[in-house]
């Protein structure tokens, strides 16, 4: 059994929370006391049935306003998979929270209200999904019950979205007509839509392949911590602890330490449960190298053949996440994997109007603005272009005055 992480995106009232509630409810993942708690709540649907959205809206302010403000994580499992859902807010004001939810997801469910079709928000959400390079997209055309379960309505939205996906370079899209409220095509096939021959949502989620390409990516591991017991028995022990970000390391491989460029041979791939011959993507290990080399937290161990880009002048896409505008004269921190160094965002190349996808001129970025920038870092970073290897292509910007995370970076190239 493996894990699928997905998020739901859509604008306010498209039915994200209801859809998740429905998935949990129909898979028997809602427990008696939770159900009792929501039945006691005074948030009800118009027909008096319980509002399944309450299952995910966890904050007082959210329940009061009836909207989702921050990402809520929900868990359920079937015999095939464990699922981690990020229920993300649809409102433009909370775009940064959606980006948070999307950054770790393998798949995005984009909800479209059947009555409204593809709207500006759909474009914005789809743009974010393509920017963060999610592997899979599922478009759920929701509230089909309100358009008489019409195949024409569905086909029209299908065609419209297809055009958008092509423009955004989103490769894999699956379309499913659903009613989250009534449970059509969520966990059970809809009797009201016999014309739909595809999988229902749960079947799709249970079978979609994940992490398929990862084994083909170059081997990378950021050193998080140097294990040095410094006891008499383990006097010379030095192990480099980290997680294999992508690809695989094999015992005996000659690797390089970036940015220094020193090379050495892997003498041991250690774990608490025994040594490995091969350590693959996702595994947390302690790696040992031959000879005495100077390695510390923040260094990147990687393949020699397919080396990462090592640079201090970098072009990147940025999503600005702070109410305070980007200041091109200020010094920020940049955190890439375990490396933290100072940086300046020297130039704004353009901003993207995320509702129309046009590139526009800009000098700075405000909350939720997205676009392309040039960065100068104090120390060199060893990264891969985000679109090729997102496991080593993302970084964050931290305001050095407030310590708050103010930007998400998708690193693209050296300048």
């Amino acid at each position, binding site marked *: 059994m493996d894990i699928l992480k997905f998020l739901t995106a859509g604008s306010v009232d498209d039915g994200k929370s209801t859809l998740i509630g429905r998935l949990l409810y129909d898979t028997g993942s809602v*427990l008696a006391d939770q159900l009792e708690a929501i039945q006691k709540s005074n948030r009800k649907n118009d027909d008096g049935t319980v509002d399944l959205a309450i299952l995910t809206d966890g904050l007082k302010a959210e329940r009061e306003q009836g909207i989702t403000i921050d*990402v809520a994580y929900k868990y359920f499992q079937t015999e095939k998979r*464990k699922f981690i859902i990020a229920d993300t807010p649809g409102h433009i004001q909370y775009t940064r929270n959606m980006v948070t939810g999307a950054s770790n997801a393998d798949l995005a469910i984009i909800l479209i209200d059947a009555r409204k079709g593809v709207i500006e928000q759909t474009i914005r959400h789809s743009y974010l999904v393509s920017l963060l390079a999610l592997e899979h997209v599922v478009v759920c055309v929701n509230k089909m019950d309100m358009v008489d379960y019409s195949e024409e309505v569905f086909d029209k939205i299908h065609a419209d979205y297809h055009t958008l996906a092509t423009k955004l370079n989103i490769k894999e899209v699956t379309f499913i007509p659903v009613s989250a409220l009534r449970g059509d095509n969520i966990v059970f096939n809809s009797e009201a839509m016999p014309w739909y021959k595809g999988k229902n949502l749960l079947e799709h989620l249970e079978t979609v392949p994940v992490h398929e390409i990862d084994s083909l990516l170059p081997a990378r591991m950021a050193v998080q*911590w140097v294990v040095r017991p410094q006891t008499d028995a383990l006097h010379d022990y030095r192990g480099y602890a980290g997680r294999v970000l992508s690809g695989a390391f094999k015992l005996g491989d000659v690797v390089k330490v970036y940015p220094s460029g020193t090379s050495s041979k892997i003498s041991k791939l250690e774990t608490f449960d025994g040594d490995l011959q091969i350590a693959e993507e*996702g595994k947390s290990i302690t790696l040992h190298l031959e000879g005495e080399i100077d390695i510390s937290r923040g260094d990147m161990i990687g393949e020699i053949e397919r080396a990462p880009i090592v640079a201090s002048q970098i072009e990147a896409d940025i999503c600005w996440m702070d109410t305070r505008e980007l200041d091109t004269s200020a010094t920020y921190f940049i955190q*890439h994997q375990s490396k933290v160094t100072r940086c300046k965002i020297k130039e704004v190349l353009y901003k993207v109007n995320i509702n129309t996808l046009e590139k526009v001129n800009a000098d700075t970025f405000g909350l939720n603005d997205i676009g392309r920038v040039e960065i100068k870092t104090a120390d060199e970073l060893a990264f891969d272009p985000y679109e090729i290897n997102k496991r080593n292509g993302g970084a964050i910007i931290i305001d050095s005055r407030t310590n708050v995370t103010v930007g998400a970076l998708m690193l693209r190239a050296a300048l």
Partner: protein
Amino acid sequence: MDYLDQLEAEAIAILREVAGQFEKPALLFSGGKDSITLVRLAEKAFRPGKFPFPLVHVDTGHNFPEVIEFRDKLVEKIGEKLIIGHVQDAIDSGKVIEQKGKNASRNALQTVTLLETIEKNQFDACIGGARRDEEKARAKERIFSVRDEFGQWDPKRQRPELWNTFNGKIHKGENVRVFPISNWTELDVWNYIKRENIEIPSIYYSHEREVIERNGVLMAAHEFLNMDADDIVQTKSVRFRTVGDMTCTAAVESVKTEIDDIILEISQSKISERGARMDDKVSEAAMEDRKKGGYF
């Protein structure tokens, strides 16, 4: 990768980030299954080295004796440091006032001792075993959750948290609560304990115990619990799904003594783990309010 391997690798990476980013971290150890799991994960993250943090236990004085005994044995076995903060000290010095009445519990008083222990030892990061599936306010919390000088969580001002990049930068006086098993469910923890053969306190397994029924749940009949004539003491075969203060942790009737049976029982159970805790029953926002006030 198998889901337990995936969860394990993620948790180890988070623990190593704590080690790398903070000067004085601590692992909050309750003696419950979640924090015992954290200890195993820390062994996986740092052995053959020592843990780069001590274990910290906030002792309400109303703990199950089996749990305290277990704690001391575990600490000795792993050879790590244990720091204990006593709620009794805060009561004796008048910093907190013991609750009165039938449902009196020291659970809420823990926060004061926790914050004092953090301040006294100048901990800048506290690792905890909270999981997002426990409760809906927890479902919202980041893995690195910044708390202000008063330990408060501000749900509206959470930092964006992207990929597996955790921003642990803080100002003096602030600290970060870190939750490495955020993405684990109760069932995942049990399956992991089984797979790893992890020892846990005996009260998790079924045993005969004197209990009383109150507000629809079973409570251990014990000197710490305020009882009166209405409370009828009976002996039942029970086990505990969570380990907290004796006065706020309810038992479930069970005759299961093998971990496999317990896993089966939990996966079929119709009540959630936190449903067995009185402290969350008070209101729909009980946990959110406690977290805002500095609770774990």
